[in-house]
């Protein structure tokens, strides 16, 4: 059966999950025992986990819905990160001082837009980049597309590395990356406009605000996914994933539809990249490795390709393991056995083994979409084999 109306139990479960997540910073610092907090991420780490979950959900539009294997998703993370750098740091100090809602004092050199605007700009710029990359590449199918996107994922960091001298213009600061990027906050402009705002709002907000912003972004991404899934556009994506030629014959414009999925995926990838950069206050081309693309792709696969809830869970779990779980496990291991093993060295070995095991035991993902389950279940009729045949 297709995703019908949610049952009451599911609604209640969702509400509980959301409330727990919303109250997490508070729970973490006030109510949890140290034995538990040893295993749980602090608020800043929890922020990173949610930001990466947004990336997983963003990639799900491309890989899960439209079925386009994108191995270069990190390109959009990079785009978002650098837009944050351009619009909220002293990178363009030569251009004078443009302070508009940024969390800096007036007359600070460089561009300092309100971080909320920066997030939006990063997402939009990234979506635009998605269109620019998508139009020439999305004509390719399957493995070819995977290889070309892989290429773009490598080209973008290279471009960033060499972008410190574009005809004499320093766009990216090269291999050093950008530092001193502003944080989240409301800034002087807003402070002056709304006098009732407490004076500490001039400063950068604390980690809870990052966390809540990321949580809000997760919610926006999930809602977007659900609304689009049950729409003309979402159906066209899934049709393309199922059978591109048949979709075209039914009147689905392939290029436009695919590019749109790519751009929407890029939109959320860019937003996440900017969020993470605003928190870190710095970014550099070293952060844009193939491993990031693969990591995010694993979230989609682990969660259950195409299922929004599965990908959310997969994203949170995988990012948790990467940013907290593994350390916690290593610490527990060392303190129990009196050893001194650096478990993070074996992270990729552990992931590799885990993915292989997972694919063997539960190839449909944690929470597979009903559609995906339909694909993996034995077909009732042996005659259907012909349905897979290639050209029409």
């Amino acid at each position: 059966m297709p995703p019908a109306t949610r049952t009451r139990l599911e609604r209640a479960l969702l509400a509980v999950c959301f409330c727990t997540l919303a109250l997490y910073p508070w729970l973490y610092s006030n109510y949890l025992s140290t034995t538990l907090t040893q295993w749980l991420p602090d608020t800043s780490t929890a922020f990173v986990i949610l930001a990466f979950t947004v990336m997983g959900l963003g990639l799900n539009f491309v890989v899960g819905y439209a079925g386009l294997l994108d191995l270069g998703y990190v390109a959009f993370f990079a785009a978002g990160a650098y837009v944050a750098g351009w619009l909220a740091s002293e990178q363009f100090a030569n251009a004078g001082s443009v302070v508009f809602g940024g969390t800096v004092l007036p007359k600070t050199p460089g561009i300092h837009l309100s971080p909320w605007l920066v997030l939006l700009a990063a997402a939009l710029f990234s979506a635009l980049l998605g269109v620019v990359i998508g139009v020439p590449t999305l004509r390719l199918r399957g493995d070819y597309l995977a290889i070309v996107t892989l290429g773009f994922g490598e080209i973008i960091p290279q471009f960033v590395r060499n972008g410190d001298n574009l005809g004499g213009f320093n766009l990216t600061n090269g291999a050093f990356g950008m530092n001193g990027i502003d944080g989240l906050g409301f800034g002087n402009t807003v402070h002056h406009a709304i006098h009732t705002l407490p004076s500490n709002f001039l400063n950068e907000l604390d980690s809870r605000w990052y966390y809540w912003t990321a949580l809000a972004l997760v919610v926006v991404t999930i809602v977007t996914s659900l609304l689009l899934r049950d729409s003309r556009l979402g159906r066209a994506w899934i049709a393309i994933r199922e059978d591109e030629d048949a979709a075209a014959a039914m009147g689905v414009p392939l290029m436009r539809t695919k590019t749109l999925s790519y751009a929407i995926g890029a939109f959320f990838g860019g937003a996440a990249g900017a969020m993470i950069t605003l928190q870190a206050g710095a970014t550099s081309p070293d952060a844009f490795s193939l491993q990031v693309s693969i990591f995010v792709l694993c979230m989609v696969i682990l969660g259950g390709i195409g299922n929004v809830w599965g990908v959310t869970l997969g994203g949170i779990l995988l990012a948790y393991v990467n940013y907290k779980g593994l350390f916690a496990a290593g610490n527990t291991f060392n303190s129990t056995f009196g050893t001194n093993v650096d478990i993070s060295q074996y992270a990729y070995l552990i992931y590799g083994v885990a993915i292989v095991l997972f694919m063997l035991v539960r190839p449909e993902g944690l929470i597979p979409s009903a559609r995906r389950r339909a694909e993996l279940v034995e077909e009732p009729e042996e005659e259907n084999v012909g349905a897979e045949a290639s050209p029409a």
Partner: protein
Amino acid sequence: MTAELLVDARAIRKEFGGLVACNDIDFTVERGAIVSLIGPNGAGKTTFFNMLTGAYTPTSGEIVFDGRDIVGLPQHKITALGIGRTFQNIRLFGAMTALENVLVGMHSRLRSGLFRSLARTPLQRREEKDGRAQARELLAYCGLSPRAEQQYARHLAYGDQRRVEVARALATNPKLLLLDEPTAGMNPKETIAFVDFVRKAREERGLTVLLIEHDMRVVVEVSERVTVLDYGEKIAEGTPDEVTADERVRSAYLGTKPVS
């Protein structure tokens, strides 16, 4: 002005490397007719369909559909102009429900894009509701039981898959319906029912039908004109009786080369 001819294809040629799959074929279809395209396996029939729908671009030649040259148009534009099709090997969207398959067929008729879908505007909601109602009607029209509407296409029985495929093609609101071996795998009773269905649909929906068919009884029964292809060449054309009497057709079907 509506021309007499719905399809007017001239000297259509398709080469795959050295292989000439369609060799300068002239082909016309009158408005409202049921026309069959027959010929042995590998004759180039499906290739011809693929050129009509824009899936393949002809190596040379021109195709005028409903007064417009359609060569080189992207497939979705051709579909929107009014060519709907089914596939020789059923190609449904397996992990979508029967209903959703038909809704995809309506793609070019529905309007809601990204922003309307996100905002769930009244227009978008009405369009979805009407679309679903129409899709249900179409499925019922093609003989699918309401129970099967919500099943994944992959899980439907073979006969139901064929029905959904026809419903999906009709959902594009075609002027010309292309059916590629629709009776393959049907028993004689189902075949007779299907022939009746094609006639009925033609009357009720103002269709023109072009049919690739192997079963000569179906061809003789349903079609007003028949074109015969063999090794990419058009070897005969005419009424079913004329064609079945043709010496070259007989030998092509018996697998021997004509003597001449």
